[in-house]
Structure formats: C-alpha cells, structure tokens
C-alpha cells in the first residue's frame, strides 16, 4: 500500500526531532522512496544503529507497508559534501 512522502517525514521527525530529512519518490508510485536523514542523534553510532533508529521511527512499516526505502544516514559533523 502506498505511503505519502510527507507521512514518512512526519514519522521520522516525531522520533528524531532534529532530523534533516530529504525524501525522493524514486518511481513516482508512492511505494519506492529514497531518504537521507541527518541528525545529531546519529553521532558516534555505527551505520546499523543509525538505520535501526530510522526503522524504529517508522514503526515496523519498512519491509511491509513501505516496500522500498533506500536509506542514507549521517551525523551532521561527519556529513560528506554531496
């Protein structure tokens, strides 16, 4: 079932208030998204923990209701220039 980008952003922000979030609807079908999340909460955490925080924010929707979410996470100070 498709999910709106704004809803994904709302859920992430509710759990990680300082997050800078960029969401791209990859296929234009509301079902394949890419998200980039930057937050100070990620500082000092490995990539697995960072992704787990985002998955937890989305409350079990990833892999179910939200089929495809490409995810990139970073802490502000380690952020690479894109």
């Amino acid at each position, binding site marked *: 079932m498709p999910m709106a980008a704004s809803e994904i952003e709302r859920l992430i922000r509710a759990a990680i208030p300082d997050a800078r979030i960029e969401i791209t609807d990859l296929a234009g079908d509301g079902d394949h998204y890419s998200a980039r999340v930057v937050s100070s909460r990620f500082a000092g955490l490995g990539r697995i923990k960072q*992704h787990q925080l985002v998955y937890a924010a989305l409350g079990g929707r990833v*892999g179910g209701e939200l089929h495809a979410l490409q*995810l*990139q996470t970073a802490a502000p100070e380690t952020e690479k220039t894109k």
Partner: protein
Amino acid sequence: MSDAQSQIADIVGKNDIVLFMKGTPLFPQCGFSSRAIAILDRLGATYETIDVLQDPDIRQGIKAYSDWPTVPQLYVRGEFVGGSDIMMEMFESGELQQLLGVEAG
C-alpha cells in the same frame, strides 16, 4: 532459540561471507538483492547466498535475528554488516573491500 534462529546462527557461523537475499545470484527477485549481488561480484568476492523466498521461517527469522526489517542482509565472519544501502556506502568508501579482504577494483 527457535529452529529458524539456530539454523540462521549455524549458517552465519559456517560461512565467512553469506548474503540472505530474495532469489539467487543469477535470478535476484528484488532490486535491492540484485544490487547487493552486483557489489559482491564487482569485488570478486566468494560468497554463499540463502534464498529467503524458499523458506518462510528463515525469511521471518532473519529479520528478528538481525533486528533488521528488510532483505538482503550481509553477514561477514558472523557479524551483521547491513543491507544493500550500507553495502553500497561501504563499497564507495572502500570499507567493504577492506572487510572482505579484496583489492579495491
């Protein structure tokens, strides 16, 4: 531990590099699994794969085992490395080459 959990522990313990995926390396059944295979092949790594579509218990079990909601999942020497996004990041930064003990190519 349930059967599936001990089966998974056995698989990740016995294989240095193992990818839990949807489909097979020749016929991946999902874009993320396909991307994971492309990365491993690009590095010339020798790896095992487990097709989770062949076994519903493993398919559900691996999510709990890793506390990770999606497949593919890469394990190297018993340690969970991540899904295809993390593999891609580590490939681009050269960390994956180092972890797998292959030359950057």
